[in-house]
């Protein structure tokens, strides 16, 4: 997936200002930045939910899966009914087989008959991701997927996502959790006030901090990141 010169305006305000990046197969890209940086807007444009005012997005056809921040599921339907509905809408030849596959992948086979509203936030998020995967995407976009999850649920979620990336799926996710981005993101895209400040690995970001804010270079990753932003005027 490649994005070039993306600009998005909401009235007078520019939410994205010429953002560009590229991600290859099997890459795990974390989009990080403070509130209002434009993370969700960027992912929405990559997913085709929103339109950019300028710039282009090159994506592999309609093979882009999108998992919104809040679970986009019908809470009064069961896990299985949700998966079956979206498999049918995706036009799968054998939607029931796809449902079985996703239940297996999400590890929720035993809870297939439960109403989604009664599931924990973590399990709802797993179904949310499973629905996003029904499109058999070569690129999966996740908007803050770990929000509201406890540490155990987060660990299971990232294990699940890492397995997808290991299978060749490009995964681009946004997060507020800098430690999580360092741990799971193979690449980091730092956004602030609609600008892309940095694009590289966590190690490369730490080196950049050492150059620009040496006093924070040996602190924990989050402190170093905040110092980097401050040094850049954000």
């Amino acid at each position, binding site marked *: 997936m490649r994005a070039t010169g993306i600009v998005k305006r909401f009235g007078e305000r520019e939410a994205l200002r010429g953002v560009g990046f590229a991600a290859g197969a099997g890459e795990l890209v974390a989009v990080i930045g403070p509130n209002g940086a434009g993370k969700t807007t960027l992912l929405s444009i990559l997913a085709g939910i*929103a339109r950019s005012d300028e710039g282009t997005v090159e994506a592999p056809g309609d093979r882009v899966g999108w998992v*919104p921040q809040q679970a986009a599921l019908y809470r*009064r*339907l069961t896990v299985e009914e949700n998966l079956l509905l979206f498999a049918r809408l995706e036009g799968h030849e054998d939607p029931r087989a796809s449902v079985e596959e996703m239940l297996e992948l999400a590890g929720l086979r035993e809870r297939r008959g439960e109403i989604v509203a009664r599931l924990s936030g973590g399990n709802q998020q797993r179904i949310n991701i499973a629905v996003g995967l029904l499109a058999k995407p070569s690129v999966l976009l996740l908007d803050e997927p770990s929000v509201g999850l406890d540490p155990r649920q987060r660990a299971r979620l990232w294990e699940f996502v890492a397995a997808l990336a290991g299978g060749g799926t490009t995964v681009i996710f946004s997060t507020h959790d800098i430690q999580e981005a360092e741990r799971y993101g193979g690449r980091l895209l730092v956004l602030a006030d609609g600008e892309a400040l940095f694009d590289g690995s966590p190690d490369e970001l730490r080196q950049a901090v050492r150059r620009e804010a040496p006093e924070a270079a040996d602190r924990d990753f989050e402190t170093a990141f905040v110092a980097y932003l401050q040094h850049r005027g954000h």
Partner: protein
Amino acid sequence: MRWLLLKDLQILRRSPLQAALLVLYPVLIAILVGLAISRGPEKPRVAFLNEVPSGARINVGGQQLPSANVKGRICHRVECVFVSNREVAEQKVRSGAVLAALVLPADLVDKINSLSTLTPGTPKVEVLVNEENPVKAELVDDRVSTLLAQANLAIAKRIAAEGGHYLQLLIDGGDFQVLGQTVHILGMRTAARVLAALEPSVPPALRPSLEQVTRFATEARDNLDVAGPLLDRLAQPIEVDKVRVGGESPPLEVFAIAVAATLTLAFVVVLLVAGSLALEREENAFPRLTRGLVSESGLLVEKVVLGILAGLLVTLLMLAGLQLFVPLEWGRIGLWLAAILAGGGALGAAGAALGAAAREVRAVSLLAFMVTLPVAFLSLVPSGTVSGGLYDAIRILTAAFPFKPALQAMTAALDSAGPGIGAPLLHLAILFVAYAVLARLALRRFAAA
């Protein structure tokens, strides 16, 4: 689209309370409205205290009139609660057990009888009221005025009838009773005949005078013949002759059923379509669906179809239920279906426009009630009951929402003697297109937000 329909039906099935409320609430409202329209107002309860001594009768010229049955006439119009004294009457009025109390004082008949004397009094009846609110006060005034007018009319008719009887006695002659004695009256007709018979035996010099008296008797008889019908008309000088110059109204039962069915259809369709569309957004599923799985127009069509199917089912069930009370012409079911489908389509499009305008199911439900309920009631306001300008405003408002044309279509479908269904169907088709465009624009605006 069928998978989305199936999903919405599954969600409805999972929410039995909401589904039941969706059906029961409009049905309950519809039945109440139907009953209110078809049965008309109940007889108001009025306490009745008659202090007139038993046996007292109204006299005209020393003759007792037969009873005018005033009490019977009043109690035919209202539900009379007979009370024995004034304190009980006051207590019942104060407690609200009766709307008012009508007291016929002991001297009422004497006062009426004095009307034909040189010292006429003013007969009065007393009305006790509890004007706790202005609507009730207005209602009591109207009711009491009507009752007294009816009582006066009954007495006047009886007096006129007696007067006519005496006139006839003067014209034709005959016997009548005075103080137990039978008195014979010659009558104008016989008097003229007697005078004519006497004429040959009267001296010629007196004949012109006799002729004058004979002519007077003849003219008096002829004129009094005319006075009889005039006296009859005095009691009720004006009669009503109703001429219909337009607006064929259906039988009240048919109209009540049409109102009940259309109310049900409107609430089910508007609430369901608006609510289910808002649910897609509340569940965050809207962007996921419209990312290529289904078009925005397709989603709107699915919601409208869902509303039409639910409205069709509930309305037909309601008509089947009402069949138990009022016979319906099931041979016209084709027209019923046309009215329900066209009405459901236009109401569904309006519901979609409402659903696309708000973000949450609760807000949408409230909005749907706030729009549908007043429009439905305004659609029932007949012309002439409000000022011309206000009625024009109501007419424009109700023409812009599908309830009134749906009601007209339903009435036409139910009433075989009524006007055709074509015009309301065309009106509904125009509204369907207009609201579908509005809904589409509102959805696009939401998607872009």
